[in-house]
């Protein structure tokens, strides 16, 4: 059985903790809040998020390209995982 969205979120938060900047409690972030604008991550940390999605979920960005907007929030990333793992 594939993991639920909540389980994926838990894993995503664990990952974001490893790349986040200190001083911004990730637990307080809403799913729709912008990760960069909130100060949680650096704008170029999108590269690390891409690597995470490629490794963890086998997402292949080479064909469809990447929409940085979609990778800019926890909810957007989870939606992308949902689409890719259907």
């Amino acid at each position: 059985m594939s993991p639920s969205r909540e389980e994926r979120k838990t894993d995503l938060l664990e990952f974001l903790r490893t790349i986040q900047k200190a001083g911004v409690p990730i637990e307080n972030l809403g799913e729709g809040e912008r990760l960069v604008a909130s100060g949680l991550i650096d704008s170029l940390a999108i590269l690390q998020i891409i690597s995470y999605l490629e490794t963890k979920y086998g997402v292949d960005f080479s064909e469809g390209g990447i929409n940085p907007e979609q990778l800019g929030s926890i909810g957007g990333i989870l939606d992308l995982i949902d689409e890719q793992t259907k």
Partner: protein
Amino acid sequence: MSLQLFVGNLVEPLSGRTWQTRDVHREVARRTARFQAHGVRRGDRVFLLFGNRLEFFAELLAVWRLGACAVPIDARLTAFEIENLARTATPRVAITDDATPPELTKTLGNSGVAVIGTTEVDEMESDTHEAKLDSDALILFTSGSTGEPKGVVHTHRSLRARWMALADHLPGDAFARSLCMLPTHFGHGLICNALFPWLAGRDLYITPPFRPDLIARLGPLIDEHEITFLSSVPPMWKLASKIAKPPQRATLRRVHCGSAPLSAAAWEEIRNWCGTRHVCNAYGITETGSWVAGAREADVAAEDGLIGEGWGAVVQVLRTNDTTQPLRAEERCATGESGYVWLNTPALMKGYFQRDDLTSKTVADGWFMTGDIGFLDARNRLYLRGRERDEINKGGMKIYPSDIDAVVERFARASDVCAFPIDDLIYGQAVGMAVVLQDRQPQTISELYDWLKEHLAEHKLPSRWWVLDNIPRTSRGKVNRDAVRAACEDQPPLDLPAILAGKNA
């Protein structure tokens, strides 16, 4: 001296704004008149606390027309750092835009500096030309923002020498439509990527620096504006190769990459993405007016660390880095032998601003000791192999560990500190820090974090912290940053987010 305004068009692809050459002349003349009304005169210094937009270039040329000196400043610095720079450089005026943080404007105002918004201009125009060839034209502060600032001073003569050398060594047509995505407060972005083509009458396309959303659209941007040239730093390509579709129209004729030499593999990857073989490393140092060496024919075979020949510079590799002794021919390394890279160029800076002590540590008989390690091959082409400069290269942004040390040392409960480079997936290097504290209580660590946030620009904040019992030192009491890093790598860093989350809970 008449400062010729043989400029090209200026374009902001993001906003769609364009200034034709005649618009640039008008905007410069208006700003010149505005500066005169504020009493700016030859020899004055003007802070430019913004960049990467059309108005920046009009302000720059207006400052130069009056014989004053432009000081582009990174607006990400803290109020503490800005106050320190203002105390050193004593600008008569500071120019801001709507993105300049209000606390910086307030700090400068409190320091007695007149602060003017870049769009605050009226119809009055002035065509005065007060600049002298050996007047100070540009100061770029490269370090010391938290202590004793180190500002590279270029005169109009040294800048012109750089641009003339580049015009001699590079194919002019390749720069017909140049895209600048690099910050205009750095030598690389300002002097070479932007001003070199633009002041030669070529069109310049200017965007905000390092924006992932822009990099994601880089291919279509290049196609839409038929961009022929851009310069870059390695992290741009790490991102572009992942998230951006390549250009389709084959308009690029040349691409430079600076800050750190490319590996052969990364080099070929960039060539494939750009659709041109004409991609090369551009070796640039602020003190030499940035680009000082590279491949004239950029379609050379890619090799790890290959730079090329000097562009208006004589390149020597010596066994010594001693600037106190006269240079001797017998110190020259043999072909293929690694040593210290020295440069002799008419584009060399005048010196460090009010720091003759620092200038004498890097310049000997007109030769500049770069601090880079490299060798020359049988064709006199330079290869870089490393550097001995005490700096952290975070994706092309040079961060000086001593700037971080200086702030931590002023924290009452810190006994010792050593900042050092750590490997980083995206930027190549990031900032690590070993610190000795009087206690390891979360409260102390939180307060140190707040202290750093107050005094250091965000990109300089250490991302990994290690709290040690003592900082390893040499028998002569000196810190060896490599040794400290090695000691830290054996143990896990502090879980800073968790500690700070506890504070915020």
